[in-house]
Each structure stands twice: as C-alpha cells, then as structure tokens.
C-alpha cells in the first residue's frame, strides 16, 4: 500500500537531515580550531544527498523515492594561515592554520536543515492521519 511507503520515505529524509544537522554542529564546534599544518587544518563538512532509486535496493522497496546521504565531502575553500608565534600549535615560522568554516553559511545551513526536517515530520503526520481515517472506514 502506498501510504505505508510514506513512513519509509519520510523517515529516510528525517535521517538525512539529521546527518546534515550533525555536520553543521561539527563544523560550528570546530570553527575556531587551529592546526600546525595546512593538511591538519579543519575543513568544513557537507553531507551529499542522493535520491534512493529502485535499482539501488536489495529486495526491500519501502524507502524507494526517499533520500540518502551518499558521502560527506570537505569544503574546498582554501585554508587561511595566521601569524601567531605565541600559539602552542604554531609552526617554525610562527604560523597557525585556521579552519575554513564560515559561521554565517553554517547558520543558514542549520536553518535549512531544520525547516526540511519539520516539513517531513508534517508529511509523516498527515500520512498517519490519512491512515487512521482509512482504518476508521469499518467503524461507520
């Protein structure tokens, strides 16, 4: 039955948005970190979404049409370095490497994830109501 699938689809979306929210939390938590080398510097993380298509499923098709997180990629923005010889993490020239997280865009990302999450909760709620109404047919 088609209404059953909505719980799987909505659930997959809730899961994906939670992963997105987690990456935002991690980015914001690490926004102020400094590192001794360019390679060690913290790079912002982004969840990559992809629709779940029929041919990707192994037998179970209750999430078909839902969404999944395929990978988490690093933000390619170049790392900034700052001259701070007093910092214990400074390299031999006195530079520390800052994270490339932009707090503003992280806040926007957080709000977008929040709204999408709410939307999908609403979808699931409506589907549940429709299902209850359908079950009540026999009561009339």
């Amino acid at each position, binding site marked *: 039955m088609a209404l059953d699938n909505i719980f799987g689809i909505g659930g997959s979306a809730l899961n994906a948005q939670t992963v997105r929210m987690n990456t935002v939390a991690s980015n914001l938590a690490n926004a102020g970190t400094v590192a001794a080398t360019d390679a060690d510097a913290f790079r912002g993380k982004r969840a990559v979404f992809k629709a779940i298509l029929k041919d990707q499923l192994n037998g179970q098709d209750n999430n078909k049409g839902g969404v999944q997180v395929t990978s988490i990629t690093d933000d390619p923005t170049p790392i900034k370095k700052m001259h701070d010889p007093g910092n214990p993490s400074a390299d031999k020239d006195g530079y520390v490497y800052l994270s490339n997280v932009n707090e503003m865009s992280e806040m926007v990302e957080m709000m977008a994830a929040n709204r999408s999450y709410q*939307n999908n909760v609403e979808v699931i709620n409506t589907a549940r109501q429709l299902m209850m109404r359908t079950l009540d047919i026999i009561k009339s």
Partner: protein
Amino acid sequence: MSLFDTALSTHAQSLTARSQRVEVLAQNIANADTPNFKARDVDFKQVFRNTQEDVMKTTHSQHMELPVDTSTDGMMYRIPFNVAFDGNTVELNVEQAQYGKAAAEYQATVNFLQDEIGGLRKALRGE
C-alpha cells in the same frame, strides 16, 4: 458484478490512485534538498484508468478499441517555475500545497466510501 463490487469499486480504486499521488508528493518533499532531483507528479486520470480492470473492453470483433494509452504509468515531471542552481526542481511551497490538496482529496474519497458502506449496512439491516 455483485452489489458490493458495484457500490464500492469506483471509490476503492480511486483511493488506491489517491494514495499513490500522496506517496509521489511525499517523495518530492523528502528530496527537496537533493541535487539534480526532478519533482514528479501523477496524472490522476491515467492512474485511475490503470487501476480499473474492466473499463470498456472490446467483446466483439466488430468493436473498436478506445484510443486509451495504457503504456504509461501516469508519472510525469513537474514543470518548475524556477530551477534551483543544483538542478533540483522541487519547489517546497508548490509541493506542500499539492500535498495538502491530495490529503484532502484522499479524505473526501474515504468519506464517500464510508457513506457507501453505511448505505449498504442500512440496506442489509432492513430497518
């Protein structure tokens, strides 16, 4: 066709078609942030026609086939007002409005079905 089939068939089949549409719209909303996802919708007429097993069949060699295309499943891509930069064509406001409408239509069909059952029950009791 028995009494129950005639009384309930249309609305029961329409309930199936309506629940399919609700599912497709839920898929759109779930994928509102997926890059390159194309929003889809259901052609209700086509899906409803596909759920009906015995709609206007030819029973004689002289009968002519109705020009009905049963090859498609009624799924179509939505034409967006604006395409997002990442190729996503889901417009959340449109989808939410359609989802609300589809839910209302589903409930309307449930009400019709309920009335039919109530009528049958009354007839059976013979009150």
